[in-house]
């Protein structure tokens, strides 16, 4: 049985009348990448900050590496063993990259060598540059290095690639996968569907403070039938009408006609129906994504900026 790194039971966080986190329960296993996926304001950051011992909880129980986050004596033990990359990581502007990392290293009883981290994150050329002079992507890389400075057992990454360009995002994903290979437990929050799908072994959907679904990407796809889709580009009414004769699940999405299917035989049948009518629209086959599941289960998607759309 997998060892539990994080255990959250009936977690509630209230701000006056507002319930930011509403009876949330989940476990994260050691060595696992677990992602919280939801739009802005869903309760992701509040939850992660409770796990990081930065916010008090209102009700419920939370343990990190076997330590209760509400126990004042346990908090320093937790903090010694976790690494944190907050949203919009910031450090002392007029200190160099190396000086900032040395500062973070000195906060812990044990630490990874700063030089080793500078090499690992490819920051050698910028090690003497002032933090305030770095680009957003480099600052984020320093943030990742700072999160690893104590060789943590759990790494918390709060929206680690928000605002980064696609290349740097993919580089960051590579670093996160390397951390997993090194045996770290990773708790990730994101509003990027593809990020959750690419990285996470299990995903929890969080909407308005509540977990609406949780599981491996495959399990989540099962929730929407796990069916692939034939997409007929600009199929129009004739294609839609023809396919309607063989499946009630066919739908129009804009000008495209979408036909979900479970077996290859269904695709052959669809193509032969269209062939008999002399129709030959451009077609592609798409597997369901986390985004499809999220849309199906919550009724909305998430924009690039993190808003519910």
């Amino acid at each position, binding site marked *: 049985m997998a060892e539990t790194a994080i255990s959250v039971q009936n977690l509630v966080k209230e701000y006056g009348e507002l319930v930011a986190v509403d009876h949330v329960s989940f476990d994260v296993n050691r060595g696992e990448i677990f992602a919280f996926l939801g739009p802005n304001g869903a309760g992701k950051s509040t939850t992660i900050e409770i796990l990081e011992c930065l916010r008090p909880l209102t009700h419920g129980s939370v343990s990190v590496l076997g330590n209760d986050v509400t126990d004042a004596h346990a908090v320093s033990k937790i903090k010694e063993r976790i690494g944190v990359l907050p949203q919009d990581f910031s450090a*002392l502007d007029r200190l160099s990259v190396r000086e900032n990392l040395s500062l973070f290293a000195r906060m812990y009883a044990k630490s990874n060598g700063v030089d080793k981290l500078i090499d690992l994150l490819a920051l050698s050329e910028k090690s003497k540059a002032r933090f305030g002079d770095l680009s957003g992507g480099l600052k984020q890389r320093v943030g990742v290095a700072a999160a690893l400075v104590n060789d943590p057992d759990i790494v918390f990454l709060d929206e680690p690639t928000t605002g980064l360009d696609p290349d740097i995002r993919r580089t960051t994903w590579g670093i996160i996968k390397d951390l997993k290979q090194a045996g770290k437990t990773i708790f990730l929050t994101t509003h990027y569907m593809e990020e959750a799908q690419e990285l996470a072994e299990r995903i929890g959907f969080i909407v308005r403070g509540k977990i609406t679904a949780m599981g491996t990407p495959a399990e989540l796809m099962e929730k929407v039938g796990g069916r692939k889709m034939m997409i007929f580009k600009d199929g129009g009414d004739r294609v839609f009408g023809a396919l309607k004769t063989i499946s009630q699940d066919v739908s129009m999405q804009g000008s495209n006609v979408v036909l979900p299917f479970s077996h290859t035989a269904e695709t052959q049948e669809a193509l032969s129906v269209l062939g008999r009518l002399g129709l030959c629209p451009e077609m592609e086959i798409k597997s369901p994504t986390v985004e499809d599941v999220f849309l199906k289960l919550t009724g909305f998607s998430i924009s690039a900026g993190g808003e519910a759309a």
Partner: protein
Amino acid sequence: MRRSTAIFVAVTKNLLRSRAGLFFSLLFPLMLLLVFGAVFGGGSTTHNYVPYIIGAFIMTNGVIGLTSIATEFKRRGVLKRLGATPLTRFEWIMGNVLSQTLLAVMLTAVVIVVAWLAFGLTTIISVYTAIILFAGAVLFSGMGMLLAGLVKDPEAANGLGNAIAFPMMFLSGTFIPLAMMPSYLQTLARVLPLFYFQDGLQAAMVTGDSSTALTDFAVMGALALVFILLGSYVTSWREK
């Protein structure tokens, strides 16, 4: 202690690398010294303004400058990131207090040397001068960290710092001698921390009255302890 020292080194470097920070912390008091010296003259009259300039600027560096710096760290999320390490609030405050104490020593040294060279300042440099300066720096930086814990952002910090610092300067005799004030204002001055700092500086640097200096040191030490402990309690790692 290790973590406080690391914070002390980091925030001091960060401050000393800021031209604006250095100007307001060190050069601005020097400019005021030159203006006062030109207006009131040198020799023994320097006793009437040098200790007050030192006291007033150590106070404003703590109550206005440090409050703004600490709330800016909070706004930018630096404090939240440090709060996710084993660093305690007390260690964070002590690192900043030590940094301001070093700044106070630098400020005092610069003002005394320039006042001596330019206006012939004669002052007593003794252990009492050192302990009063130390107590003043710790007291007002502790007060600054307490205020930083109470306010949300740098704008509010600046406003609150000014609202406290300037009335305190007027009411503690920085600009107008206390003897010229009505008796109720003289009584009010005795509840203000700056009164004890300036009284202690006068006693240590000018009159050599060690007993007054020690009494003022004790009052400032007690207040500093209260401010630092309260600051440790109210400091939040993130914006509320």
